[in-house]
């Protein structure tokens, strides 16, 4: 079993829901990321989602776009991000790490080289926004060979037939995008999320994480009622932006928000 599956199994036994924070690797600078990863684990994160900077992040709202631009000013590359995970692993061999990004850096590196490097660095899975299962056959094969999970998105526009296809192709968990739009958008319709999550669960035994539009303890708690995991991204990245440059303040601010969200989820 992968670290991701182990973690979900353990949480299920404890009757707890997973908290998955997202930050963009190398934002606002490369030195910040690994200490911040440790701080997030301490503040209650169960799985870490680490964004790989890309020049054309089509599914991101302005907050994460700017984060990627800041990271790219330091030329943070896919191999740099995997190196950060390797460094993180020197002190933490338990917490699963998921890379989130876009296909092109992986294409350019080559699927096989990517999978080998990712496994060697201690990466557990990968979520690439712009590759649906229909195009992912080759990539899935090499990831599977390295026992890496590939997480796919399900959206409000995904019909039952596609949910089944996605459930069959993916592993680790299913990431339900709670709204039509880009990351960091506002409105969260809890009733629809509930309906959608139960629909996904009809077709799959994989845990379901919900992301997009969750920014505080209250919204996290609402989602945690039905989902197995809550993903928080733009709200954290916004904190990074606000504390630009000041590493200690950054860790404090991120930890405070995560702890608050953790309480919200655990109170459910």
């Amino acid at each position, binding site marked *: 079993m992968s670290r991701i599956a182990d973690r979900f199994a353990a949480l299920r036994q404890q009757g707890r829901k997973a908290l998955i924070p997202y930050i963009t690797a190398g934002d606002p600078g490369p030195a910040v990321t690994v200490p911040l990863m440790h701080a997030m684990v301490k503040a209650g994160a169960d799985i870490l989602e680490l964004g790989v*900077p*890309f*020049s*054309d*992040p*089509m*599914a*991101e*709202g*302005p907050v994460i*776009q700017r984060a990627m*631009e800041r990271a*790219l000013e330091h*030329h943070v*590359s*896919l*191999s740099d991000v995997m190196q950060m995970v390797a460094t993180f692993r020197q002190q933490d061999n338990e917490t699963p790490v998921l890379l989130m990004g*876009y*296909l*092109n*850096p*992986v*294409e*350019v*590196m080559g699927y096989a080289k990517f999978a080998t490097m990712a496994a060697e660095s201690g990466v557990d899975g990968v979520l690439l*926004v*712009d*590759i*649906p299962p*229909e*195009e992912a056959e080759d990539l899935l094969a090499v990831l599977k060979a390295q026992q890496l999970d590939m997480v*796919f*998105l*399900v*959206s*409000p*526009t*995904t*019909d039952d037939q*596609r949910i089944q296809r*996605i459930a069959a192709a993916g592993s680790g968990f299913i990431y339900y*995008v709670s709204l*039509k*739009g*880009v990351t960091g*958008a506002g409105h969260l319709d809890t009733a629809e999320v509930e309906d959608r999550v139960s629909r996904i669960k009809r077709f799959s035994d994989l845990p379901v994480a919900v992301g997009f539009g969750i920014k505080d303890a209250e919204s996290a708690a609402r989602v945690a009622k039905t989902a197995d995991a809550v993903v928080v991204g733009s709200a954290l990245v916004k904190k990074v932006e606000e504390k630009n440059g000041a590493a200690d303040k950054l860790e404090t601010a991120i930890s405070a928000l995560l702890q608050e969200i953790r309480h919200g989820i655990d109170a459910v």
Partner: protein
Amino acid sequence: MAKQKGNSEERYNLPDERGHFGQYGGIFVAETLMGPIQELNAAYSACMQDQAFLDELDEQLRQYVGRPSPLYFAERWSRKLGGAKIYLKREDLNHTGAHKVNNTVGQALLAKHMGKTRIIAETGAGQHGVASATVAARLGLECVVYMGEEDIQRQAINVFRMKLLGAKVVPVTSGSKTLKDALNEAMRDWVTNIDNTFYIIGTVAGPHPYPAMVRDFQAIIGREARQQIQSQEGRLPDALVACVGGGSNAIGLFYPFIDDKSVTMYGVEAAGEGIATGHHAAPLCAGKPGVLHGNRTYLMEDQDGQIIPTHSISAGLDYPGVGPEHAWLKDSGRAQYVSVTDEEALQAFHDLTRIEGIIPALESSHALAYATKLAPTMDKEQIIIVNLSGRGDKDIHTVANIEGISL
């Protein structure tokens, strides 16, 4: 679309049902767009089988766009170059001044059939934005055009035209502030407003079915040219020349000739300040395959897979990718891809203006510049068709600026 050719050779019939041209093309988008893309694909396939739709499209192309566009023999210019006879496919004479309107008329009609009330588009030079705003005005649809901040500076006249037509022009300030970023922003709008919004992509890029759909709407260029040259010269041309940014005017001209193996096809990319300087927009000549904007194709990218800034004197060619069908035509050897510099394009701009009395768009001037190199190597009986994809009125300020003239 059916082609009128009856031989036993295997006919070109790409893309496959998943939008692949060999290893290129496909559908590489976020999950939220998969449903809308399937819906679009179904509506598009149905409309292209529907005679009433095709008749309506044909009627609009004649009455509104002004088709067929002439195939003009540039006699004086040909004589000066001293080689092949050069014919110009006069897409510059279309309503709105470029080939872009062939596609926007088609897609807007499709949008109407799908019951969409809002149109979005990206634009570089502004021609596609103007063509989209134009059809939106005519159909009474809301229209939002995304345009890079830098391009807004370069193409002030087209920006004002779009506003006159009732479109909202949204400046894009992310990334390199040019066409690629406008496309990103349009995609973000689409994913947010998919219920009522139709995204009119202006070139043969994007996820399937866009590359095939835009090609099919632009193929009217090549179908007419093929017929015209046969009636004017009694035979097929020896060469076709068209500029390639995303590649819609080129594929529109090339596609109906793909099975005519005697016809050589040249796609002309923007070499900017020269390929060796790195300041260019020539992914087919100097890029590598990758995935961007929904498809796999040749891209301008660095060793980390980041898309790199492009440069061209013409905003319409200033794009780091290219339609996946061109990637396939390059690899298969069916088409040749070459490049010309800003300076060469500018020279051709002046030449055509002075010799034929036609002011070409800077985009089309790249095709003209290559024709000036090609024609003298061919003999006088041979024929080149150059796609004069747009007129140069929009570029007057750019040219004046470069030459230190203030208007």
